[in-house]
């Protein structure tokens, strides 16, 4: 039975909501969108070593701990902002899980930069990739079970302490 438009829309809503929350640094609220067994990873394929790589991984608890400790870390202050478009949502036959593919571009809005006097206010593209999300559908709002941020980008310059 084909998935209802409502189900598909609710999955898209969850994805876009995650982008809003991450953009606004509302990490606790973002994790609330995720189920208790949520796992997160940033992955990429490297043509240099011709291998799939995991750049970062963690479960919900590890992410929460990491995000709690963040204020104690020296970090670049330039916020990351996302532009995302959901390309595809596939709901399985049981109607209990869904998978989505979302194209995402993540920009840095420069604040510290290298020299904030010169760099602040500029936008730079940081990474390009896709959110590959898996959801549990319980009747209420879809809950994230797994997010893989599959990056094309391997030139990561200073990197980031924040989730993508």
């Amino acid at each position, binding site marked *: 039975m084909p998935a209802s438009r409502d189900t598909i829309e609710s999955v898209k809503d969850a994805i876009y909501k995650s982008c809003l929350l991450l953009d606004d640094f509302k990490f606790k609220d973002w994790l609330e969108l995720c189920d208790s067994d949520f796992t997160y990873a940033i992955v990429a394929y490297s043509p240099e*070593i011709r291998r799939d790589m995991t750049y*970062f*991984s963690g479960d919900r608890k590890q992410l929460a701990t990491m995000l709690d400790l963040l204020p104690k870390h020296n970090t670049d202050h330039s916020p990351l902002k996302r532009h995302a478009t959901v390309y595809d949502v596939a709901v399985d036959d049981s109607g209990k899980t869904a998978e989505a593919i979302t194209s995402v571009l993540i920009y840095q809005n420069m604040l510290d930069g*290298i020299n904030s006097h010169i760099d602040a206010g500029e936008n730079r593209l940081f990474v390009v990739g896709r959110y590959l999300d898996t959801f549990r559908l319980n009747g209420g709002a879809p809950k994230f079970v797994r997010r893989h941020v599959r990056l094309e980008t391997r030139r990561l310059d200073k*990197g*980031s302490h924040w*989730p993508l």
Partner: protein
Amino acid sequence: MPSRNAAQWNTPPNSLRIDEFVDSRIYSDPAIFEEELEKIWKKSWLPVCHESELPEPYDFRTLTIAREPILVVRGPDNKIRAFLNVCPHRGMLIERRPSGSFLENQASGNPKHMTCMFHGWQFDMKGNCAMITREKEGYQDRLSRKDLGLRELRCETTFGNFVWVTLDDNNTQSVNDWAGDALACIQKNLDAEPLEVFHYHKAIIGTNYKLWHDTNSEFYHDYMHYFNRITGFTPEYFARKNVAHKNGHVVVGTFEVQYEKYQLGKSRAELSFPGLPPNQWFMVDLFPGANFNLRGSALRVDVMTPLSADTVMIEFRGLGLKRDTAEERMRRIEHHNSIWGPFGRNLHEDLLGVAGQGSAMLPGSEPRRIIQARHENETIHDEVGMRHFYQEWGRRMNRLPSDPTRKYMEAAE
């Protein structure tokens, strides 16, 4: 202590010896940079990649050293060779991709050959010119394939089967002659079993390559890392040695890492490298700009490619054992990533440090003293590593690091 006016700022304290500071112009002067490429980067051995990046015969990798394009290829005899990635005909880059296999057919060339797409000249894996299109028609008896092989570069596969290349044919030292002393502490761990690269990323940072190398050579900057402060500053930590080796290399000694205190759960004690006791660690900083960093569960290797006085590309690799099970590999990757990954704790902070230095030492900024004066019995917060590097640098460049307008002289003891 009071702030200083310009004259006071520019006068070194009387107690500072000439090897205890460097002049920031060594990090910012474009002419010095060009000289470094000629005198240092074109003359040193560099660990450009790992053999696991080209595992099969006919596999290749491309890279650059001091702006020269290099092709590293594994022959059908399984031996890895390096060539200038330049066609002897009209100077075209022969292979444009970062990696691949010459077993595959090419648009202008045949399997088992390197083909320059421009005029279809082909070369074999030993650098022989195998084929010149319409050779006799154009060159008659004057020029032939046998005159036009590739330029082969000295290349060794060693120390964990890293591929080392030098642009200098006159460099008669082997990698072992040059860096064997410094790498001795980890050699048996690197050579015990075949290694495999599992992590690769790159950063292009607005800073001089030596500033990144300095950060890899000194650990006083552990103050910038939250977890190092709360878990790492133990008596064992402060007892670790910071040892200078010939040819400008530096080694920092072993260290019992207290991971439990850092809320990430299980100790990393279980997984290790062959022959390396759990929770031990070695860091080898090789002149002029590579770093082997072996912790309990992952080997990290950084290699730099300086692009200009104020820009450097750093390639970051993480390695495990080829025989890792999927579970062991995932644990190594997680351990590697949590500290050294691009989205982990420490690397971002280290890069912030050197990027900030770079922004304050742009070409044309005022010459400043960069102090490297810590003496602590050659233990971990001693800055002997940097002083030793700049001794070697000064000799090779024949410039005094504390005043690069003057010729090098040994620092008065």
